[in-house]
């Protein structure tokens, strides 16, 4: 395997995402040799999970549901679903009757408002649901960028080797050497980008080098396996080998890495929102909810606590589920 070189190059074993302090060991995301195991159904994989990972998966599904619900509410039902974006009806203001609702600012949690209300008397629970949309979008867009572009480049150079690999990996090295959070801040601020999709895309672009490293390490390992040699021996075209042997085998570990990378990306977006450099108010995101509630830290810590907990739980769940799939792909390899 490529990672057993005696010379230790710190850039060779690490892949950071968008300036996050989390330095991932690329080594962790290389599946060891072994035989393929039978494919399991989604339900079978779920049953295999330890209890906490199950909880994490359910939480992630809930966040995903919240994001879709929020979009449906905003785009299809124009804020008429229960738990509508409270910005559309500030304090329950009803334009038809001219009456205000009964919400008070900084209410404690109750049945009507499960997470209480914020300083502007907006229901925190529905704001958090709408904030989920921002985090989910950023995570999905960046993962798609990383897996498609980084996964393809990495699989290709890991298999083809030669000059292409040397040149491309040198380029990737240079890109990885950038402190991406600072670059991201500079990009977003100089061009005054506030559009969610553009921000997600830029974050995705910046995480491509890390994905490339991981998929290359996997591709290198797989290229030396018997089934690839066998395919080469019977004269299969290189492109076909890449498509049918390499990429399907790179994917499981790359997707496990993608979940962990998505966790880092959600934190990056949260930090940007917290600094007021992501989506614009009044659109809610978990980061800007925390930032807005910060002013009332002496009166009501709850309003800071709830979005913080939601953000942290999401990151924790992504990390745990990602780790589970990474261990699973490693386990699959070693279970001869």
């Amino acid at each position: 395997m490529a990672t057993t070189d005696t010379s230790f190059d710190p850039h060779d074993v690490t892949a950071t995402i968008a300036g996050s302090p989390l330095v991932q060991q690329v080594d962790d995301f290389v599946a060891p040799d072994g035989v393929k195991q039978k494919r399991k159904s989604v339900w079978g994989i779920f049953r295999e999970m330890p209890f906490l990972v199950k909880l994490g998966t359910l939480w992630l599904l809930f966040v995903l549901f919240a994001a879709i619900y929020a979009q449906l509410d905003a785009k299809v039902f124009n804020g008429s679903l229960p738990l509508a974006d409270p910005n559309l009806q500030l304090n329950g203001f009803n334009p038809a009757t001219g009456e205000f609702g009964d919400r008070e600012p900084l209410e404690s949690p109750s049945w009507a408002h499960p997470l209480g209300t914020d300083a502007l008397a907006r229901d925190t629970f529905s704001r958090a649901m709408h904030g989920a949309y921002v985090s989910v979008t950023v995570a999905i867009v960046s993962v798609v960028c990383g897996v498609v572009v980084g996964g393809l480049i990495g699989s290709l150079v890991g298999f083809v080797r030669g000059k292409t690999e040397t040149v491309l990996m040198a380029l990737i090295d240079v890109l990885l050497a950038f402190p991406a959070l600072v670059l991201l801040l500079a990009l977003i601020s100089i061009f005054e980008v506030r559009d969610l999709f553009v921000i997600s895309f830029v974050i995705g672009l910046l995480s491509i080098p890390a994905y490339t490293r991981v998929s290359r390490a996997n591709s290198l390992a797989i290229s030396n396996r018997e089934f690839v040699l066998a395919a080469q021996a019977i004269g299969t075209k290189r492109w076909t080998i890449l498509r049918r042997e390499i990429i399907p085998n790179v994917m499981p570990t790359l997707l496990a890495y993608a979940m962990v990378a998505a966790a880092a990306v959600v934190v990056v977006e949260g930090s940007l929102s917290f600094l007021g450099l992501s989506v614009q108010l009044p659109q809610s995101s978990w980061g800007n909810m925390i930032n807005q509630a910060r002013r009332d830290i002496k009166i009501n810590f709850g309003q800071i606590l709830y979005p913080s907990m939601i953000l942290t739980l999401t990151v924790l769940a992504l990390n745990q589920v990602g780790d589970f799939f990474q261990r699973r792909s490693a386990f699959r390899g070693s279970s001869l």
Partner: protein
Amino acid sequence: MAKTIAFVLLRLIATLFAVTFLTFLMVALLPGDPVDTILGTGPRAPGIEEQIREDLNLDDPFIVRYFAWLGDAVTGDLGTSYVTDQPVSDTIQSRLPVTAQLAFMSIFIAVVVAIPVGVLGAYKQGKWPDTVTSAGVQVALSIPNFIFGIFLIWLFAVQLGWLPASNWSRLSDGLAANMKTAILPALSLALAQMALFSRLVRSDMMATLRENYILSARAKGLSDRYILFRHALRPSSLSLMTIVGISFGALLGGTVVIESLFAIPGLGFSLIAAINGRDILVIQGITVFIAAMFVIINTIVDLLYAVLDPRIRRK
């Protein structure tokens, strides 16, 4: 050895070129007249447009401008802010010590905590101390630093009232005053590093403890503590050093959020202030500076590694 060093230095130069070029390109790509971007829409002093045009060589082609700017940057001249009238390099010079202190402190805290935690985890592998610390590491890795920072503020500033919630006392105001303002931000930055380092120490130690020389040390009847900290920890320190170096580089940029949270006048705080004031030259200057520092520190770590690791040294 010489080959390794030459390669590393070559990569450093290439990366520095790329970093400076991209940062410069970013500003050059701004739509519209750069003078308008820099001055905004407010009233303008007479002659200032021509002065900016001349200062930034705006009438020259892009490549000429880049090399002129690079030449100035190498000699420490990053231009003068048109918002505050201060040279950008002065701003960096006065803000850098603050950020560097925070980075040093948090790395120090992280290493001091991480080594015993990691060693404990490896020593008690699979038993409850390992389970507890591993779970702690998992959680610590998932808490964003600004959230941990707010929690610390709430606990130590709001509830207990022991420490100030924000602001900064310089070291010249006395060590105690300085520490009072520095400890919370340093702790918030240290959490993730702590988790990362202890995970590394644990997995490194677990591999080392399976080596034969550990077995022979044990056979000689050396105490567990002596074996752990004298024999086993040493080979792990190289990879720890590498990751500490990388973290330090990352922290220079990563303090942005924490500096804004605690209102600490460091580099990141200046960067955010410049972003809010649309002070393009300061954004450009600080970005290039942090990026260059990051690249240079990583290179130094690489070189140190090459020098310290006997396997590489012998090549």
